[in-house]
């Protein structure tokens, strides 16, 4: 894709996006390495190639806005403001993990920054996000709720139920469909009748659009516009971001169901490289741009080193956080 030169962009803003995308990329590469070294204990799903959506969306949210994510949620969580060390400790199941070692990659969350959880069940986060928005409305608060899901999620019932619900109750919720082309290891378009998420949303009276999800400027602009609409009380909105999953479904999936040529072509649309080119064109020095990669790598190398050195969590935690009434620590189990 060629794009028109964008002369009037806010350089500092997009430099921040550029660094965040590099941090997500470096986190995912580090997680992949940890997976190869058998230090990650369960399945992890990498978001390499989808960083512009995580950064572009989350930078337009406030700390108090809620975010619900998917099994492919590391990037979203990091971009919402979570600590990468606490996240890596969770992936390795170590003491200090952000969920105390109880959730792992697929349940990563940081309630302190409004991130209410990734989810191991495709589409389940949609109703939860609608409900968080419902609470905002009942409490007459000013924040919004944002739900990121993949294109595979739109063929489950909660997509219909949650979008209809948000429309019926006119809720402050932004739905983001990260359309990376694959539902697990099957091509989504082969399993989807009709024109997809945005068309389905429009059929329920929800304002929706489709945007290039590898173009950080486009992601940033449309998100800012839709978030502003939602904050004005204009009800639920949906954005479908077209992107491509550059790695397999899990970090252990070789993705042999697609050709190398297809993946190589997709790498030419790498959102980070496209952002770097944009920054060069508007006059940012190559050194500054290149330095972001180094900063991110150094940060995640340090994170990985600390995570590997961390001990296992205390065994007592296994019985904690279950429930107040009938707590298993009372011995009645």
């Amino acid at each position, binding site marked *: 894709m060629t794009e028109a030169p964008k002369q009037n962009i806010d350089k500092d803003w997009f430099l921040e996006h550029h660094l965040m995308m590099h941090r997500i990329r470096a986190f995912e590469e580090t997680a992949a390495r940890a997976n190869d070294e058998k230090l990650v204990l369960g399945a992890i799903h990498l978001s390499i190639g989808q960083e512009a959506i995580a950064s572009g969306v989350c930078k337009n949210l406030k700390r108090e806005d*809620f975010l*619900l994510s998917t099994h492919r949620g590391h990037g979203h969580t990091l971009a919402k403001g979570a600590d990468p060390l606490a996240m890596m400790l969770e992936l390795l199941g170590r003491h200090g*993990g*952000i*969920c*105390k*070692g*109880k*959730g792992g990659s697929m*349940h990563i*969350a*940081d*309630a*302190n920054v409004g991130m*209410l*959880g990734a*989810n*191991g*069940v495709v589409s*389940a986060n*949609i*109703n*939860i*996000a*609608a*409900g*968080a*928005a*419902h*609470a*905002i*409305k*009942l*409490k007459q608060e000013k924040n919004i*709720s944002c739900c990121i899901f993949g294109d595979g999620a739109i063929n489950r*019932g*909660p997509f219909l*139920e*949650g979008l*209809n*619900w948000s429309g*019926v109750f006119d809720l402050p919720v932004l739905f983001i469909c990260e359309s990376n082309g694959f539902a697990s290891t099957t091509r989504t378009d082969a399993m989807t009748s009709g024109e997809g998420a945005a068309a389905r949303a429009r059929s329920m009276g929800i304002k929706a659009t489709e945007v290039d999800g590898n173009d950080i400027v486009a992601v940033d602009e449309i998100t800012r516009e839709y978030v502003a609409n939602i904050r004005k009380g204009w009800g639920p909105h949906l954005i479908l971001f077209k992107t491509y999953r550059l790695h397999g479904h899990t970090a252990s999936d070789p993705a042999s169901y697609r050709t190398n040529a297809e993946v190589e072509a997709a790498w030419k649309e790498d959102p980070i490289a496209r952002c770097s080119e944009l920054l060069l064109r508007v006059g940012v020095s190559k050194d500054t741009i290149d330095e972001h990669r180094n900063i991110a790598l150094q940060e995640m190398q340090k994170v990985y080193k600390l995570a590997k050195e961390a001990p296992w969590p205390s065994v007592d*935690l296994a019985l*904690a*956080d*279950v*429930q*107040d*009434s*009938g707590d*298993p620590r*009372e011995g*009645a189990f």
Partner: protein
Amino acid sequence: MVKMTYAEAAKLALAEEMRRDPLVWAIGEDLGRGGVFGQYLGLLDEFGPERISDAPISESAIMGASVGAAMAGTRPVVEMRFADFALCAVDELINQAAKARYMLGGQVKVPMVIREPMGMWRSSAAQHSQSLESWYAHIPGLVVVVPSTPADNRGLLKTAIRSDDPVVYFEHKNIWGFEGEVAEDETLIPFGKGRLEREGDDITIVSWSAQMHVAGKAAALLQAQNISVELIDLRTLWPWDRQMVFDSVEKTGRLLITHESVSVGGFGAEIAATVSERLFSVLKAPVIRCAAPRVPISYAPPLEDKVRVSSKQIVEAAEKLVNTSSNDNR
């Protein structure tokens, strides 16, 4: 004391809690017109349509959105209309509500009450009659409540609404109109405390929900034969009042558990196993369950009654039990 029905007692409890806490709200199909069984009648006028909220026929969204609304700081009371329909929202309840607190390492709680009208209600057939309470008792994270009287329905629903745990709250459809005395002041009933309905020496009978009334009739019939029954209403299945059951069985040496739900894998099996593990030496006879056969519930009354556990069955089983000595048991 005031006389009111099981349904009125629940309505009173909800209204009191909604007055006390503006974050409590109710959501479900047809609530605005009072709910399918009239258990919300009049509440719309006092609390308005945002807090007594109608919902689309979207069980997955009713349950799932309530999970999100609970995580985000409100206290939803979720009406599932029939316990059978809650099965359309099993992921939202079991995978999400019950486990969110644990999976997220205690970062969030999910304070919600899931009201599930349960049980046989003449000629409602297999999709409107089930008693599935034992399923939920199996799930870590959930509280399971099964009240049998108006007083308990009021006191337990109030406790459920104030609880920070997700509470599956089973009200039995066949006793909505059952009348009983309810205290004039607010009485909260704690979870995990059974109610001794009747004291006795020869045999302990444990039950809950509408089956308590069947068991009560059986106990009276047994008394006429000079068999003295100690009758316990568990009121909540998780947590459940082990101590009350242990104390009673230590006295009587005999235990019969009766529930309307299917016997196989029912909560009676859990009680029987627990008592056998703990009190084997004091048991004078095997622990007996009087519960339904593993058969869907029929429409035609004679077929429906075939799977309903009657007072007569309980009486016969109890007679057999008290005539069993520990030697026969070996």
